[in-house]
C-alpha cells in the first residue's frame, strides 16, 4: 500500500500518538499507587468512597492534557 499524504501530517500523527500514549502511561503509573491505597481504604471504611475517588482520579488529568494536545495536533494544526 502506497503511503499517502505529506511527511508533516505523518509527524503530527506520530506526535499525537506519543502525546496520548506517554501521558496514558504516566497517568497509569500514578494511579496505580493511589488506586491500590484507595481500594484498601474503602475496604476498611466504605463511607469514604467519594473522597477516595477524588484522590484516585487526580492523576487522570495528565492524560486529558495529552488527549487535548493530540486532538489539537490533528484537527487544529
Amino acid at each position, binding site marked *: 500500500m502506497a503511503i499517502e499524504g505529506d511527511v508533516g501530517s505523518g509527524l503530527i500523527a506520530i506526535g499525537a500518538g506519543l502525546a496520548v500514549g506517554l501521558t496514558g502511561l504516566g497517568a497509569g503509573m500514578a494511579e496505580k499507587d493511589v488506586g491500590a491505597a484507595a481500594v484498601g481504604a474503602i475496604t476498611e471504611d466504605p463511607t469514604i468512597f*467519594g473522597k477516595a475517588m*477524588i484522590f484516585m482520579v487526580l492523576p487522570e488529568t495528565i492524560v486529558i492534557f495529552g488527549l487535548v494536545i493530540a*486532538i489539537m495536533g490533528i484537527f487544529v494544526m
Partner: protein
Amino acid sequence: MSLPESMSRIVVVGTKSRMEEAIEAFYSAKALHLIDHTTGTDDMSIGAPLPTNSKASERLLKVRAMEKELGVGKTTETARVSVEEIRDQISSGSVESTEAEILKVLDARNDLNQRITELNAKKKSLEILATIPVDLELYSGYKSLAVIVGTVKEDPSEALKSLADSEAFVSFKKKAGGVAAVFVKTEDKDRAASILSEYGFTEIAVPEGKGPVSEALLLADEGLADLYAKLESVEKEVEALRMKHKTFLRASDEELSIEIEKGEVPLRIAVGEYSYIMDSWVPTNKFQSVAAELESRLGNDIHVEFEETRGRNLHEEEEAEERFKKVPTKSNNGVIAKEFEYATSLVSTPKYQEIDPSVLIMFFLPLFFGFMIGDCGYAIPFIILGAYGLKVTHHKDWRAIATVLFFGGIWAFMFGFFFFGEALGMHFIGHWEPPLNITWEGLLGIHLPEWFSGIMIDDHGISKLGIHVGMLLKLSVYVGIVHLLIGYVCGYLNIRRQHDNKHAFMEKGGWIIMFTGMVVFCYSLTQMLFDSAPLEGMVMYLLAAGLVMTVVGVVITSRVEGIMAILELPGIVGNILSYTRLAAIGMSKAGMAMAFNYIVFGMIMGMGETVVWPGIGFLVIGLLLFAFLHLVVWTLGILSAGLHALRLQFVELMTKFFEGGGIRYEPLKVKRVKTILTQAKADKEV
C-alpha cells in the same frame, strides 16, 4: 440554593414517673434529634435503662441465637405480624417455650452429629487395619505382651526381624504408605517403638470389638447409614421448626430491638430523682406541632421549651455550648434531588451552614452523562433500565444508579436526536459513503422528510468524529467554565452566609476574579495562537483585561492563602481542560461504534457504493454480531460516562465550595419491617 432545613433547639422537661410514656411520645413525634447529655454540666446525671430492658435483652439474645441456629436472617421471607400479637406472644413467654422446643431438636441434632464423627473416626481406623489379618479382640488383653499398631511411611519389615520372640504384621504399598502391627514382649516395647519411629510411625488406637476387621467395618457402615437416616429426619424437623417459627423470630427480634432502643433513651438524657430533662433538635417548622403533640399526650407532666433557632452564621456556632455546637443536617430536597443525596453522601454529609450540592448534582450529573453518551440507540435502553430500576428497587445504592441511568438516558436521547442526530453510531441523515459515512438513510435506502433534518442542528447533526471535533472540544470547555463558575459562586454564598460579605470576597471573590481573568486571558491567547489573530483591537484588550484580573485575583487570594494562590493558577487551566473529557469520551464511544459498524456491514454487505443486502444466513449472523458489539459499547458507556460524570461533580465542582463533615439528622423513630401497627394502636403509638 438548597440549604439544609432550619433547626431549632428545644428542652423537654417532665416527671420521671411518666418517663416511659414520654419516650413513646418522643418516638411517635418522629422529629426529635436527641442531644446526648454529658454528665458534669449540671447536677443531673444520665439515667438508667428502663426496668423492662434487662428481660428484653435476655429474650433478644435468645431470639438471635435461635435465628442463627435455624439460619433465619434479614433476607428470609416472612409474613408480617401485628404489633399487639407479637407483644402478647412475647409477654406470654413464647420466646422461652420456642427456645425449649428448638433446643430439644437442636440437641438431638448435635448428639447425632457427634456420634457420626466418632463412628467415622472408628471406621477410618478400621479401614487402616483391614489389611492386617488379625481379629480385633487379639489386639488387647495380654499380660506379658505389648501391642504397637500404627501407620508407617516406609517399609519396616526388615528392621523388625531383629526383634526376638516377636510377631510383626506389616502391609505396605510404596505410594500409599502402610500399616504395621507388632506384638512384642513388654520389656522390648521401647526397642520396637524406637525401630518403628525411624520409619515415620504414627500410632493409632485400635477400636474395641470382636471378630475380623472386615465384619467390624460392615457394622460401622450400617451404624453410619442408620445415623445419617436419623440425622436426615432431624434436619427435616429443624427445617419444619424454621418454617414454623421464622415469622415469630423475625418479628420478635424487631419488636425486642425496638423495645430495647426505647428503653435505652434514659441513658442519653439527664434524669434526676423526680424529673428528666432532654435537649433535642427539631426542624423549626415542626416545633409547634411537636410541642402540641407532647403536651396533649402527657398534659401537665411535660413542659416543652423553645431555646433557639440556629442561624447559618458560624458566630452562633462558636458561642454555643460544646454539645450544642453541631447542628444535625436535614436535607431539604425535592423528590428527584433526594435520589442524588446518596452521591453527596459518598463524599460527606453537608454541614448545617452550607449549600447541599445534591441539587447541582441532580442537574449536571445526568446532563454530562447524557452528553457523553449522546446517542439515541444507547439512550433508550438506559431509559428503560433506569425506569425499571426506579420501579422495583428500594436499596439506596441501586436507586441512585437507576436515577442517573433514567435521567441521563433522557438527556442522552435529547442530545443524540437533536444535537448529534445519530443512533448506534450512525447518523440518521446522509449519503451512504462507507467506511466513514454510514447512515440510517443509506442503510435502509429511504429518504427522510425535510422537516426531520430541520429539527437537527446543522441539518444532519454534529459528527463526533470529523469536522466538528474542534467545536465539541470548545463546547466542553465552555460547559466547564460555567460549571466551575457555579462552584465558585456557591463557595462565595457559603462564606457570605457563614461570615459576611467581606470574608466571602477575600476568600472566594478573589478566586472568582482570578478564574474569570484566566478564562479571558486564555481565550485571547488561543485566538492568537490558533486563529492567528493579530495582537490588536479586541484581542489585545481582552488579553490585557484578563491579565489584570488574574493579577488582582491572585493578590486578593494571596492575602488569605499566601503563595499558594500563584501555584493554583495552572490548576485552574487544568480544571477547565478536564472538561474536555466530555467530548473525548463521546468521541471514543463514537469511534468504537463506527469501527464495529464497519466490521459488521463490511462483513455482511461489503463496503460498496450501494447497499447490497446479503442472504438470510449472513444477515442473522451480522445482526447478532451487531447487537453484541453495540452491547459492549453500551456497557462500557455506563462505566466510563457514569464515572467521569460523577468525577466532574466530585473533583471539579464540589471542591470549590463543599466542605462536608456535618452530622446526619437522625430523629427518634421506629422503623418496622416485619411488624405492623394495627389501626387502633397507631393512633396512640409509633
